């Protein structure tokens, strides 16, 4: 019996490039990036060691989005970006309210934003921080701050806004989060639990708390010599991740449901795989074992041979360890007929930064668009590939070539790995 086909019929992305995916895609194909000088708003002395990021530029907010309730509700940045991206995706899909009534919502949204602000409430003049002081000021605790209630807030606002009464799931898998949300949506749809799912993620680490933590982990680059061209996946001079912020959401439907309402799919979601490294908390297994397992699981789920893949949209964080290990893993997975020599690899993070928990969603959007348009956005700032980075990374210039199938990687701290496979939409799949 043939398997239920799942297609992408709506997309929304909020990144440093703006608030919609068409401009994101156009600017990416031109080889632009949106990394620029940045300092956290909590600090006034320009002392934060991480000097560059890819923030969302609110000056670019289109007039038609200015009245969206996301901006007029007391929410964290990540929740606002995610809500906007989901709204864009739903609008893009053309789904009406009744079709959304039974839809599932699956999200990922990283770390809470108000930890330090809440901690301040424990201070009382010259006295030591205390529970009594904090409790006396409990009404001032940020209602979105600190707890899991805020972690699954994005899922709830989306479900509430669109009246979705299907399963509502919130994933917490670090940088693999959004990809896992999309993968779980694929399973829900295939099983027939729902006909429509809104899946993706949003995150903002551009604050003192979280980007400070990433810096302390040694993950975020504090390098200054490249200026805004700091994010250099697979380059010999890569020095760490460059954080972005924003969100991405996709509307996924069974093909039958999409065709019945006259929708035109952007692409078909074909496979999902996940794995655990079981190696170290902050470093990938040096032989790429976990990444290999995830990619192979996704290919098996998609019922595709490695030689059928045209593009790998790499996790490509611009960290020394990830990019070398991922290259090694890709060469292992695509070893048959030395397919890795013909394979194209791109790293979207070079253009809009690392969206952390949300990263997998806008990157899957780009992979889907590559399949639709037969165009691959470049890996920018790649001047001198590292010695351990010897694949075709589409350096600095978009590549025009047929893309039938693309695989998108997302790997998270803690050794959680995810891969998704997307394909060009064709009416009949053999």
């Amino acid at each position, binding site marked *: 019996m043939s398997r239920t086909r799942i297609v992408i019929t709506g997309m929304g992305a909020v990144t440093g490039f703006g608030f919609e995916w068409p401009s994101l895609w156009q600017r990416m194909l031109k080889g632009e990036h949106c990394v620029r000088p940045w300092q956290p708003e909590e600090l006034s002395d320009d002392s934060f060691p991480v000097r560059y990021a890819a923030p969302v530029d609110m000056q670019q907010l289109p007039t038609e989005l200015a009245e969206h309730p996301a901006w007029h509700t007391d929410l964290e940045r990540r929740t606002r970006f995610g809500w906007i991206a989901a709204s864009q995706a739903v609008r893009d899909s053309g789904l009406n309210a009744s079709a959304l009534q039974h839809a599932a919502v699956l999200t990922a949204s990283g770390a809470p934003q108000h930890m330090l602000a809440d901690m301040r409430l424990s201070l009382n003049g010259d006295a030591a921080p205390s529970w009594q002081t904090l*409790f006396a000021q409990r009404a001032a605790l940020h209602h979105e701050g600190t707890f899991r209630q805020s972690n699954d807030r994005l899922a709830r606002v989306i479900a509430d806004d669109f009246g979705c*009464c299907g399963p509502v799931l919130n994933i*917490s898998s670090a940088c693999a989060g959004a990809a896992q949300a999309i993968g779980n949506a694929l399973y829900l749809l295939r099983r027939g639990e729902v006909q429509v799912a809104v899946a993706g993620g949003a995150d903002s680490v551009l604050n003192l708390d979280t980007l400070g933590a990433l810096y302390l982990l040694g993950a975020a680059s504090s390098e200054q010599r490249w200026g805004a061209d700091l994010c250099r996946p697979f380059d010999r001079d890569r020095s760490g991740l460059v954080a972005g912020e924003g969100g991405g959401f996709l509307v996924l439907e069974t093909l039958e449901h999409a065709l019945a309402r006259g929708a035109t799919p952007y692409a078909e979601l074909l496979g999902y795989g996940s*794995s655990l490294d079981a190696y170290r*908390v902050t470093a990938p297994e040096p032989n790429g074992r976990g990444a290999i397992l995830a990619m192979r699981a996704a290919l098996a789920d998609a019922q595709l041979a490695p030689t059928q893949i045209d593009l790998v949209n790499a996790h490509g964080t611009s960290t020394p360890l990830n990019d070398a290990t991922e290259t090694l893993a890709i060469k292992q997975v695509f070893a048959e007929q030395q397919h890795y020599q013909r394979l194209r690899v791109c790293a979207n993070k070079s253009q809009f930064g690392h969206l952390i928990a949300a990263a997998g969603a806008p990157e899957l959007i780009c992979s889907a668009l590559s399949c639709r348009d037969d165009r691959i956005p470049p890996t920018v700032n790649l001047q001198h590939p590292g010695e351990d980075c010897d694949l075709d990374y589409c350096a600095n210039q978009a590549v025009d070539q047929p893309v039938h199938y693309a695989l998108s990687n997302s790997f998270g701290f803690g050794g959680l790995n995810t891969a998704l496979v997307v394909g060009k939409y064709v009416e009949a799949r053999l």
Partner: protein
Amino acid sequence: MSPATSAIAISGAGCVLATGWGSAALWQAAQQAQSGISALDSPLLHSRKIPTYGQISAATHQRSLADLAPNLRRYSTPAVVWGVSALQQALNEAQLEPANSPLRFGLYCSQGGYTHPALDAYHELLRECRQAHGLDAVQLSRRVLRDNALNPFLVLTSLSNGLPGVASLNLQLQGECNAFMQGVSGNLAALRTACEALQAGRVDVALVLAAGSELDPLALAKLAHGGAISHNGNAHYQPFDANAQGAIGGDGAVALVLRRQADLPAGPHVTLDALDGHADFARLPLPQAPDVLWCSSRAQPNDDRALCASLRRIAPKQISASQGLTGCLSGAPSLVDVLLARRSLEAQCVPAICGLEQPVANDLPLARQRSTPAVLRRAAVLNRDSNGFSACYHLTYHPLSA
């Protein structure tokens, strides 16, 4: 039997709760209706408004640490330590060693409160960086980022996916994974995803793990402010009691090992059947006349009376509740009830509701005073989250099934 139609059996369980280390300690406490809730003991917390808590004792924590590789302890919050220990217990009962097994393992986690870095980790720095009208962020930033004034492992212990990360490292798990963070519905999501992976044949063993801790001033203040726990000096958790004073928080972890029943040797099995959830309790599919119902209670008499109206429609033969034993868990609210439902089916016994003295409804079979032997074939678990989400699980006892 094809994977798609396999029933899912619970082949192992473990827990670290206020009742102690292990499911035997939990079951003993349940049978004796002996609460694990005790006076709140914390160097940062001295409150007459929240005097008690379902806290993990130092001895239980130490016992749990023994299950975690020494090199991983510095990365692990207490909740992660408990989770790893609960998982090890569950694997022991199931007689499985992932590192030496040809079976394919999947790990499905549900994480509770997001309270790290906890306030006590910043305590000294906050004191140092305070100023007349709050916090000197510049000084705090300088001390943290330049002077490394924080514990260097604090950031790693703050990772929101620490539970699957550390558990997979400790047990060398390399299979598929999922990590949810959403209270009762997170427990449901982890269980459903695990069952689905088994039924689809993607894994042979599904490890479901839930853990959480709220024992932090910020967390408790938020929970009290939101009404999830009482802050009226209440010292006893009294589910379904007419004189109850509200909920009391609790910490802990629960793990289950799930297998396809068809893959297990012949013997008595408890299977997990229907797993349902809904944001609207009125629309949640409810079981009909289970032999025993484990039902969560907020220990607010009016709320419990309203719940009892629904329970009458279910017509359970007996009703019990776990919160009086453990407190209200953020991380594993449903899994602890699933664990107890399984034990009650295996033992053919219904424990009394710990803390219940004066029932809010005399016409319902709320289990009181002592454990009661009973012929039990079907059990159900009914949980409601403080955000309104409800979940329901059905379990069946197969005494002689293969």
